[in-house]
């Protein structure tokens, strides 16, 4: 089989994994030769689905001995199979990197023969890249649950980021759809890598996981609660959400013609963002009473509408944390306001001069004691008005968010 054919098959099989960011490497080792990593990622291209291409995202092989119901590579599917050698992957990475196509490699794999064998092939690839090609760019590698601890640790020492996908948000769903996997088994390699780093005084490597949205019946509340517990234990840097695209005919899964729940995925990313950067608690966003995110509004606006007593907020006085809670104000707008109001008392015209959008914010603020728009502060009246606003395109996708992590995220 030619490299060309392999690349086609192993790209096709890898594309459903959405975590493809190249940001936030804290690796201290320098492998000398080609490449550098930065704190913010770089999107080198955007594919026809509008997603950022930052890494060469491929599987080492799509052969797999398992039969996870939701997975296109499961053993019971009749698909073309292929396997790269570690050297082929290394050559591709180096040659793509030199041409400025990519920031590095995102390598994952089906389980070929057994877990240890697969993990050692992944390790071999990283060893080639780091030690023989002296590649110093970004490498994200999927750890193989069930592989030997030494292999896991050796691999994570060479990578910038490791991940292990939980895929399904509850143990019940896992048991039903991926009986070989349990939550504990999936997270074990991450724990091993983390503990090793801590015990040896190294900075823990960035870790992430992915959840498939809409394949199983968990509510947004259950999903966010799981994310929150993973973040708060400082276990993970990122949780990715992937709207389920039916690839297999299976009685336990949505039918093949069900479209992926893209809006729901988008709202989950926004909620996740509020959790990580805006100091929101899960309960404020979703709870027993409101287990699903409102698809009509972004979660910050939805929260504001349920908490009108919190408003209006005077933009000349409010603290940074309070300003960040105003719907439609992102970190950037808040930064501008904080900077400008040191010089003078701000007026509505000043806000407009600084190109701060008041589209939805106007209903929630006062500027020098006056409201930019006289409005009835009742849920119904506001909901009606806000629904009439033109909708921005849902553009959320993980890497975009990662990318502007510190400056943007206008919710």
């Amino acid at each position: 089989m030619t490299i060309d054919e392999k690349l086609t098959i192993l790209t096709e099989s890898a594309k459903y994994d959405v975590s493809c960011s190249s940001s936030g490497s804290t690796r201290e080792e320098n492998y000398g030769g080609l490449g550098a990593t930065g704190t913010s990622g770089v999107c080198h291209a955007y594919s026809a689905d509008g997603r950022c291409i930052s890494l060469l995202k491929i599987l080492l092989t799509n052969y797999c001995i398992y039969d996870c119901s939701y997975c296109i590579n499961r053993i019971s599917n009749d698909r073309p199979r292929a396997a790269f050698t570690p050297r082929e992957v290394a050559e591709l990475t180096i040659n793509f990197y030199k041409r400025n196509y990519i920031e590095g490699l995102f390598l994952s794999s089906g389980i070929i023969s057994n877990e240890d064998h697969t993990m050692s092939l992944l390790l071999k690839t990283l060893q080639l890249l780091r030690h023989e090609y002296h590649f110093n760019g970004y490498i994200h590698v999927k750890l193989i649950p069930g592989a030997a601890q030494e292999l896991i640790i050796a691999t994570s020492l060479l990578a910038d980021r490791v991940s292990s996908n939980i895929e399904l948000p509850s143990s019940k769903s896992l048991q039903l759809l991926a009986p070989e996997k349990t939550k504990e088994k999936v997270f074990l390699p991450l724990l091993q890598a983390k503990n090793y780093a801590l015990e040896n005084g190294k900075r823990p490597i960035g870790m992430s996981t992915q959840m498939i949205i809409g394949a199983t019946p968990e509510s947004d509340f259950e999903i966010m609660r799981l994310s929150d517990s993973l973040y708060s234990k400082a276990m993970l840097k990122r949780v990715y959400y992937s709207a389920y695209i039916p690839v297999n005919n299976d009685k336990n899964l949505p039918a093949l013609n069900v479209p992926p729940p893209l809006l729901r995925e988008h709202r989950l990313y926004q909620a996740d963002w509020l959790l990580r950067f805006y100091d929101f608690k899960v309960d404020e966003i979703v709870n027993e009473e409101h287990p699903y995110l409102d698809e009509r509004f972004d979660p910050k606006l939805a929260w504001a509408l349920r908490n009108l007593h919190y408003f209006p907020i005077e933009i000349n006085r409010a603290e940074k944390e309070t300003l960040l809670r105003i719907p439609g104000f992102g970190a950037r707008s808040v930064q501008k306001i904080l900077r400008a109001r040191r010089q003078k008392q701000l007026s509505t015209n000043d806000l407009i001069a600084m190109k701060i959008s008041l589209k939805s914010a106007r209903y929630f603020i006062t500027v020098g004691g006056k409201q930019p728009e006289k409005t009835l502060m009742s849920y119904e009246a506001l909901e009606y008005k806000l629904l009439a606003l033109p909708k921005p395109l849902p553009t959320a996708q993980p890497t975009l968010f990662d990318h502007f992590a510190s400056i943007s995220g206008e919710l």
Partner: protein
Amino acid sequence: MIWRYDGSFEGFLSSVVQSYTDKTLPDLLTKSEVDIGLFDEILDISTNTKDALKLLHAIEKQLGEKIKEKIYHTFLCDDQPFENDLLRYIRLGFKEPSLLEMISHPLVYAIEEYQKRTLRTIHKMNAFSRFETLEDGTLYAQISPPRNVLPLMGGHFKKRFKHERFIIHDLKRSMALIYDGHSLELHNIHDYDLPQRSFDEEKYQHLWKRFFDHVAISERLNPNLQRSHVPLLYREWMCEF
């Protein structure tokens, strides 16, 4: 009165110096290549490198490194008629330095916007420039960015290609940034022979295109989103399009 300068940074700074010596402001300050009306009164500013450097020094000392950078970034935003604003901005700074902190001031806001455009373009060019490997292993990229960002692209690529040799060639402005494995230099390029590519260059372009086409998820096609991230004008030199 219309003032014209030669388009260089030194030339622009010389115009600022001129406005101080003449104690006057032009109605319009523009590059000499820009067309103007037949009956306009014109003054051609002569570029004086010594004066320009002196002014730059004063800017750095009195207004600070950050403002100096802002001025340079604005200057590189060469698809915009920034000259009038920048001239007045510099004069405002010397008169009342604290005003430069006030982003609700229209001039200050305008300059921030020019700078942002430049910085955004650098970011895009760092990501979207495509290199080819030449016979001797040199990495070679042709670009034609909407703003004059080539002078600011060196650091980024030097970091990644420390031990390589590379050339980034701005065809629109006939300039090239050349790195020989040790130091970076900016050159004017008026004539050049199309370099010979390495034997496997085509293979890797083809493989990249393969990857690019197959990584997209057909259930999620979204050409509008793709276009908003990679505007058409950047695609000319991107081999995957």
